[in-house]
């Protein structure tokens, strides 16, 4: 689907989590939805993610976390972004996230949480409706 402006999305896998199938599937899926997806690969530190968000000037950063460290990792990435005065980036988290942690993530500043079963269309629509 063509859009007026090219929305840029950074897909990152923070921490010591080697499972990137989900992130890859989503990266391809979002490309096919017309987004420009920057994929950074496995084992990214919060510093690396923040640097990439800034240099690539993305609209969205998607963190894929299956290790159980989502609260710590999302928190650190958001902290790094805030520390560098980045406030206009939509932060999304995907992966194995227990129901009770979702409100905690949202409180930290995560705009959307997508667990297994979420469709690419749903995520694409969410991004389109939240990025002006």
């Amino acid at each position, binding site marked *: 689907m063509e*859009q007026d402006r090219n929305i840029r999305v950074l897909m990152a896998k923070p921490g010591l989590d080697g499972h990137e199938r989900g992130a890859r599937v989503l990266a391809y899926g979002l490309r096919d*939805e017309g987004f420009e997806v920057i*994929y950074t690969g496995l084992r990214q*530190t919060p510093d690396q993610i923040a640097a*990439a968000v800034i*240099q690539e*000037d993305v609209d969205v950063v998607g963190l894929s976390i299956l290790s159980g460290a989502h609260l710590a990792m999302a928190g650190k990435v958001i902290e790094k972004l805030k520390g560098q005065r980045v406030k206009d980036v939509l932060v999304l988290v995907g992966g194995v996230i227990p129901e009770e942690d979702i409100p905690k993530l949202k409180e930290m500043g995560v705009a959307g949480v997508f667990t297994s079963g979420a469709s690419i269309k749903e995520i694409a629509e969410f991004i389109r409706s939240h990025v002006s």
Partner: protein
Amino acid sequence: MTKELEDLINEMEEGSVRALARLITMIENREKGWLEVMKAIFPNTGRAHVIGITGPPGAGKSTLTDTLTCELIARDLSVGVIAVDPSSPFSGGALLGDRVRMKEISTMKGVFVRSMATRGAMGGLSLAVRDVIKVLDAFGKDIILIETVGVGQDEVDVVKTADAVMVVCVPGMGDNIQAIKAGIMEIADIFVVNKADREGSERAVLDIRLMLNMSTEKGSLNIPILKTVATKGEGIAELVTNLFEVLESQERETSWREERIREELMSLLDKAIAHHVHVKLGRNSKLDTAVKQVLARERDPYSIVQEMVASFVH
């Protein structure tokens, strides 16, 4: 120019990476005000050296860019990287994966990496990349590396704008060397056989040498062919030495620079005229009438275009 835009340019010139990234987005998207940005920064450009890195997929361009950047940083040079990947002609989206191989440099001080999608605009890519190079130049980068597969006219045009071009290949490509020949070979200043710890690297060097020997291009016999193992950093120092030699020799050729500016002016002019024509045609109904006339086979498209061009000129 708005105060906001002026502030953004000032911030960028004072070293704000965020302002730099924001300006690049603006220029890449041709957002309102981008021309003002280009005009404002132009006096501060012309210092950086631009190096094009091209070669078939899987040759190790991104890894080589990573290692090469480390070497340049170690020599106290600041580096900007533009990594070009294709947009899908169907969805308009793109998967930009070069950062996966650029982990070393992603947080390195003095390095700025930007991924750019080709966005399928005819001739638009090379102009956009040239403009992004200028912003990185104004920001104060000493060396700007542009990495691209170099397939298609647009990407070849991008590489052509570089001060030095290196073509990366790998052992065992065989006929792939033939593929490089078309378009890219003619503009190579240095050939790199990467992954040279693999079998057949000597053969690859010979194949390239043979190809260059058959070329009628002036100076093709003197083009260096270097072996590297980017993942281990082997051969990188020698590569940098050779790159600097090319950059120094190019610096003397004023005619080459003139030719490049002439090309840029022509491309900008083409774009501006095309834009003007599109706007003009969009506003009147001449085009709709013409479409109907051709569809009904009342008139031929050639004389219609001739007529339209005549009306623009007068």
